């Protein structure tokens, strides 16, 4: 029941977000044709493009058509390449989605052990060291990390590609190799942020009364943390994880441009540069929808983890 109402909120949010995107692109500045053609195109050119884009029809109708198309899986046709957008989108997603997943996996693989160690030993040197490193990691822009990795592994050592992508169909191994450095760059920085949150969650949890209770039952510190602490610590971390996934998604947009990966981020940037408004509209909504869905999933998993919330409405 609660899940259904959350789902309704998600759908409503998606609607509103799509309206917002459509409004910014189509309504706010006035004329998309002028946007595409530049500020001072000739009236004839603008009129031509108007017809081509169907701009002579009311905005609400075009909005509904766009939305209807999206629901039917018709993402429209790129203004620049004149190709349908959906197949391109699908091809690009084969780069971006694995990239984001690898990076997230890496971030978790790094941050969970480090965060727990730093949390358990927060008073010792190793804990402080991890903490300081992660604070540094937060400050490092992922694209700079990418550049440094390229300098070391591609330019100096020649062991990994500096960019470009080998399509999966041609060579899965090659594709993985292409995604390795970008995933590391993205994952390490995200991992630093996560480490910090896991660390504080673990520290907080260790001070909880129920950990003391658990120890009073005869559990060692480690057992108490494992059996009673981690699930509790996971609750705030999951919330952060949702936010982190979002920032990872945005980070992927940037990192794709560092490594020249033909993913959604590169597509978006090219669309922005070429003012391919149809593509921009689709891509921004797609990414925003992903953010909303991630938030929704976070909300759900939060409920699964915490019986207190599960019970109350």
């Amino acid at each position: 029941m609660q899940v259904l109402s959350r789902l309704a909120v998600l759908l409503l949010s998606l609607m509103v977000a799509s309206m917002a995107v459509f409004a910014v692109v189509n309504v706010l500045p006035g004329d998309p044709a002028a946007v595409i053609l530049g500020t001072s195109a000739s009236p004839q050119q603008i009129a031509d493009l108007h017809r081509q884009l169907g701009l002579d029809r009311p905005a609400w109708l075009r909005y509904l058509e766009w939305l209807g198309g999206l629901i039917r899986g018709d993402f429209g046709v790129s203004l620049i390449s004149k190709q349908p957008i959906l197949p391109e989108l699908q091809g690009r997603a084969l780069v971006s989605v694995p990239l984001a997943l690898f990076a997230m996996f890496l971030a978790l693989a790094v941050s969970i052990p480090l965060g727990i160690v730093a949390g358990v030993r927060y008073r010792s040197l190793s804990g402080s060291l991890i903490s300081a490193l992660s604070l540094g990691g937060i400050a490092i822009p992922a694209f700079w990390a990418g550049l440094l990795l390229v300098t070391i592994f591609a330019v100096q050592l020649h062991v990994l590609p500096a960019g470009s992508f080998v399509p999966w169909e041609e060579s899965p191994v090659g594709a993985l190799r292409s995604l390795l450095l970008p995933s590391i760059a993205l994952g390490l920085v995200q991992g630093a942020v996560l480490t910090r949150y896991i660390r504080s969650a673990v520290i907080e949890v260790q001070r909880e009364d129920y950990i003391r209770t658990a120890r009073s039952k005869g559990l060692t510190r480690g057992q108490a943390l494992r059996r009673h602490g981690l699930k509790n610590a996971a609750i705030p971390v999951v919330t952060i994880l949702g936010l982190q996934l979002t920032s990872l998604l945005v980070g992927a947009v940037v990192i794709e441009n560092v490594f020249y990966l033909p993913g959604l981020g590169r597509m978006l940037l090219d669309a922005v540069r070429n003012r391919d408004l149809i593509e921009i509209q689709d891509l921004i909504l797609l990414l925003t929808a992903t953010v909303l869905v991630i938030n929704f999933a976070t909300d759900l998993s939060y409920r699964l983890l915490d019986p207190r919330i599960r019970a109350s409405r």
Partner: protein
Amino acid sequence: MRLLRAATLPILLILALTGCQSGGGNAGASPGATGKDKIVVGFVQGPTSLDITSDATASIATMLRDNLYEGLLRTDASGVLIPQLATGWDTTPDGKTYTFHLRSTNWQDGTPFTAQDVKFSWDRARDPQNKPANPHLDYWAPVSSVDVVDDHTVKVSLKQYSDNFLFRMAQGSAAIIPKSTHVVSTNPVATNLATQPVGTGPFKFSTYLPNTSLTLVRNAAWWGPKPRLQQITFRFITDANAMNNALKAGDIDAIAQLGGPEQLPSFKSDNNFRILEGAPAGKLMVAYNNSKGALKDVRVRKAISMAIDKKAWIDGVFAGYAVPIGSHAVPNVTEPYYVDENQVNKYDPTEAKKQLAAAGYASGLTLHLAEVSDFPYAVRGGDILNSELKAVGVTLQIDTMTFNDWLHTVFLPPQDYDLTIINHVEPRDIGNYANPKYYWHYDNPQVAQMVLQADAEQDQAKRKSMYATVQKQLADDAANGYIMSPKQIDVIRANLRGYPEKRLSTSLYLAKAYFS
């Protein structure tokens, strides 16, 4: 004169020479693609359409002309016109009528190639109503009619002699397309050739992944000697670094036009690669709006030209792989009329200041630079220009824009700009100075007249001297800030043979290529 139409906008030859970053992504290549009979060639940019007669992106001509599509004739590496689909041609003494004798061969779809196809192709190309329009409509300006004599003979009548005519018919957009299969689709900007190209050349279409790759396979029925390569893949890699790395990693076998010349040293020291340093091509310049404000004054234009240190640009922008030019011509076979005007408006900041003072701008002058952020050369050049102009008291306001914006504000009306950095790669385009409405707004009736006369002049010596006069006048007028002609540089795997050694940018003929 070249016309650009709104319908074919996101294009332009200017994209060709330099690593342009607009338009689409890229991809790497299959590792170990250096198989005996398959080649992967890296290109900076993929075509927006596979119809060579409707897309002016330079890369499409380079990839497909002579490989998939053929014309009646083609230019060899030394600039000589040689027969292709025509076995030969006759010219009347007045130079106004050409009779082409056609080869007996078939299209890649099996239908026979006839004179009807030639007439269809060229009539279509010169028809301004046609959509999509040929990007080089002006190539056919001198043509009055194209007539079929018989199945294998075609006669072309010109209004007057044109020196450029044959040369231009060897270019990509003058390729012959099949009449039978060329059905204009409902999409106003694409023909069926845009996705399923059919030609007469040594390689035929296999697959096309937009922004990723284009693959051709050997045409066993080709009229020439059987190509040794079984398959050609053109892979699109926008970024120079990624491209260089792909070659080093073995993902590709050749880079057609190196994007980042500053990285050449790393290839030079490696025996696995050969650097093919081609002829200079293209005119990289700071274009002046000759009709705007202070720039109307020749002294101001001269001052800017004198503030520019060509050596700094050649080293800073193209790592030394360019030659200085002093007027609108390049020293290569396509422009045999070239004369060296580098002595005019030589780098001299002191004299530049004097000229500015004489023009009344002793206390300073502010100019706007329309900078295309898609082109690394324009961005680097903008930084250099900013510094150089500052030294002579001119403040530069840089307005960055995409190439698309540039087309619609600078190149096409309203043509509202002061300065812009651009590389004109189209050969023999000096005729643009005859058009006062061209975006430079250079308006000199004598030059205009002489340019037109030169093309109609059959006497080679006379023609050459006319062009020389025009070049001198352009330099003296400082019509634009002529800087350099970047060299065509390809880097290939050392065991790749038969790759055009000193190629012109117009096509990359791979029928003779093989791996040793």
